[in-house]
């Protein structure tokens, strides 16, 4: 351990519990960051297995492997877990590890609350996964929880509602912690407009979470009372409206989409300059673009609902506001490309994933623009085109950025370099596998194959078989990632403090591996 680690204060850091108690009681941002990331990885394999079951059933038309209701349970839980159990915890894990290191803070602002934010997630996980074994099985109403279907389900539906409450609690506490850390604990001299982009994107993401998670809590509370306490929020016989749920849900749901992608933008904005050996092009415009996306995200929610019925004026408004988001997003994509322009580029695994992110996320962005057009969307609503769209954004977008970030910072966290050959193998198998799964889905959707259906018409067979083969390639290549991470933790070439030649920022000034306590005395940033 370095000198920095010995400089502890009197009520200090000695006598840490060991074993399981260390992880249950920890108040250290690095421990908690690791917990988040491991939780996310376990859930990735859990929800990924569900995806493989779904793809297996869809390999051929007709019913082969499972009861249709179990298929619906799988699609619902796959969605809920991937969003709330994989992508969000992974980004929060990055925030825990990196935000204090990048702003020169000794830890998060509220270390005990930080622990609770994490340890609520396994609670929600137990409730969600446990419901598979309850009478009636897990929820099968889709991750969006639309009434009236969601009001008619059994005991697991209530359990899921409460799990969503608990995950919301975790997100709100986590976000308050992150936002406070960023606003109050930056090293002297680190002004807002000098912050690394990753910190900026998390500041804005935390704001979005605090603004929208309570709205989701309100929506599912109404579901709960409609189910159990006789209210009529979503029942027209009582003067309510089932479509109202969709409005409230998507008021949360659309900002949630940006919650899932803004930290990805941040990670990529750290990686591309490092491996281009140039500062980020258009830093200020990146900040403003991120903020614009966040503000606009509150005005676009009903583009998820073009087919349910809405006044034409509202359809037009939501169509144009949605297209407007392409402007700041375009600013970002062009800035990343301009950062690489005339840079001296090298292609280590983090950079490969970052470049794949820029290309493939842009495809997802474009199909999003197609879906933004109300007349087109009425054709494509609830088809595989939508599935293709959001998997390009969430798999090759959010998930790839998470891989990129892991490869980028793993040497700092473990003190060892990962195996570059394994990393590149993981990258190529992932990027090829991912495109084999999801690209044909565009064609399936355009041809009219509906989503969330365990059976389909014969003419969709070939593309479905291609997608299923791709899914198994993509799914099993993630085992390479698991092996790589375990090997890197156990050993490997010693990483230097700087790790990457072109890396800039405070996190590279501390030793590799980063000592248990860093920046107990704040560094000064000029």
């Amino acid at each position, binding site marked *: 351990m370095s000198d920095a680690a010995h400089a502890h204060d009197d009520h200090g850091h000695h006598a840490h519990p060991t074993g399981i108690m260390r992880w249950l009681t920890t108040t250290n941002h690095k421990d908690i960051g690791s917990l988040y990331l491991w939780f996310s990885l376990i859930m990735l394999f859990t929800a990924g297995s569900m995806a493989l079951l779904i793809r297996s059933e869809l390999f051929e038309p007709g019913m082969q492997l499972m009861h249709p209701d179990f298929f619906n349970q799988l699609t619902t839980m796959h969605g809920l877990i991937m969003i709330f159990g994989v992508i969000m915890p992974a980004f929060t894990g990055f925030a825990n590890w990196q935000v204090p290191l990048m702003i020169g803070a000794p830890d998060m602002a509220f*270390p005990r*609350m930080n622990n609770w934010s994490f340890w609520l997630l396994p609670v929600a996980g137990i409730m969600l996964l446990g419901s598979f074994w309850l009478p009636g099985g897990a929820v099968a109403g889709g991750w969006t929880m639309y009434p009236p279907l969601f009001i008619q389900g059994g005991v697991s539906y209530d359990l899921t509602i409460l799990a969503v409450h608990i995950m919301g609690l975790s997100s709100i506490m986590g976000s308050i912690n992150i936002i406070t850390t960023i606003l109050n604990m930056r090293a002297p001299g680190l002004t807002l407009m000098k912050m690394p982009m990753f910190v900026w994107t998390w500041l804005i993401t935390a704001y979005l979470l605090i603004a929208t998670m*309570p709205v989701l*809590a309100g929506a599912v509370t109404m579901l709960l009372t409609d189910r159990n306490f006789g209210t009529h929020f979503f*029942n027209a016989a009582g*003067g309510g*409206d089932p479509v109202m749920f969709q409005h409230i849900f998507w008021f949360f749901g659309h900002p949630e989409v940006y919650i899932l992608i803004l930290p990805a933008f941040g990670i990529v904005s750290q990686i591309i300059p490092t491996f281009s050996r140039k500062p980020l092009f258009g830093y200020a415009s990146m900040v403003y673009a991120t903020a614009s996306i966040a503000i606009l995200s509150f005005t676009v929610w009903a583009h998820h609902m073009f087919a349910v019925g809405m006044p034409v004026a509202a359809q037009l408004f939501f169509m144009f506001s949605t297209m407007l988001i392409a402007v700041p997003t375009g600013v970002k994509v062009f800035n990343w490309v301009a950062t690489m322009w005339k840079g001296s580029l090298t292609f280590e695994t983090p950079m490969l994933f970052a470049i794949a992110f820029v290309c493939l996320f842009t495809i997802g962005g474009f199909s999003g623009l197609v879906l933004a057009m109300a007349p087109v969307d009425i054709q494509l609503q609830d088809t595989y085109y939508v599935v293709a769209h959001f998997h390009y954004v969430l798999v090759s977008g959010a998930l790839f950025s998470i891989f990129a970030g892991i490869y980028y910072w793993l040497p700092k966290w473990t003190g060892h370099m990962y195996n570059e050959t394994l990393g590149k193998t993981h990258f190529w198998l992932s990027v090829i596998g991912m495109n084999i799964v999801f690209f044909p889905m565009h064609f399936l959707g355009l041809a009219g194959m509906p989503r969330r259906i365990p059976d389909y018409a014969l003419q969709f067979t070939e593309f479905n078989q291609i997608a299923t083969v791709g899914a198994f390639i993509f799914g099993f290549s993630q085992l390479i990632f698991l092996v790589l991470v375990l090997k890197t933790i156990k050993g490997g070439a010693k990483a230097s403090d700087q790790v990457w030649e072109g890396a800039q920022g405070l996190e590279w000034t501390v030793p590799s591996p980063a000592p248990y306590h860093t920046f107990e005395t704040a560094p000064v940033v000029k």
Partner: protein
Amino acid sequence: MSLAQTDKYYLPQPSLWPIIGSVALLTMAVGGVMAMHEINHGLWVLLAGVAVLFFMMFGWFGEVIRDSEAGRYNKQVDSSYRWSMSWFIFSEVMFFAAFFGALFYTRVLSVPWLGESDTMQQLWPTFKAAWPTAGPGLTADGLKFTPMEAWGIPAINTLLLLSSGVTVTWAHWGLKKNNRMQLILGLGMTVTLGVVFLCLQAYEYHHAYTQMGLTLGAGVYGATFFMLTGFHGFHVLVGTTMLIVMLLRSIAGHFTAEHHFAFEAVSWYWHFVDVVWVLLFILVYWLI
């Protein structure tokens, strides 16, 4: 703000309280679901979870209070608490926004739609799509209710809560002048006003259920009325509890004129609850 060796940001020791809180919430959720589905002992499991949660809050907040009284929180920690309380209140605003949104959406859009189309005319020819309503189906089934009148108990409650905003500020002035008596008196009056408010609201609910046919099940009017005022009432209950803790701490000699953010946080929360009430009074009770 270069931090001297003696002025470090306080980093707490590893703590068991969060995981106890997680166990509490898991027990509460499982118990709650059991109770809702009338599975044996569900209520007891729920209450056991609540008990563990209270135990956790006593322990955790007690630790924070001891840390604070031991002077471990410097200016920067104090500033963290200020930021976090502001953001927490913002999250509460958004929670209420969801229910106010439901109120506006039904009142302004979806209830009028129920009276517009030909299908509706065919299905429910006698239904008048005007607020307040229990909806076409329930009305046809013979459900009748009287909407809540603003100028009775609700107006008195408005007066009570607005006065309590004044008394809590007066208590704060006392604290800042080191006038302990004014602090305790002001807090005592605020707590009393909060308790009277809650008693009157309980009476109002009882009256609504027994005399007016106004229940949680009275269509979308009943649902929005009880969920909005009910969540507000719950917040008053939490606020009053926090004020009582502040009162006990004031009597125990905690807080100084310079260092008393816990008190300020509670008063921020109390003012927030106050503002929500004013909105409720105008939009739910008054403008029917």
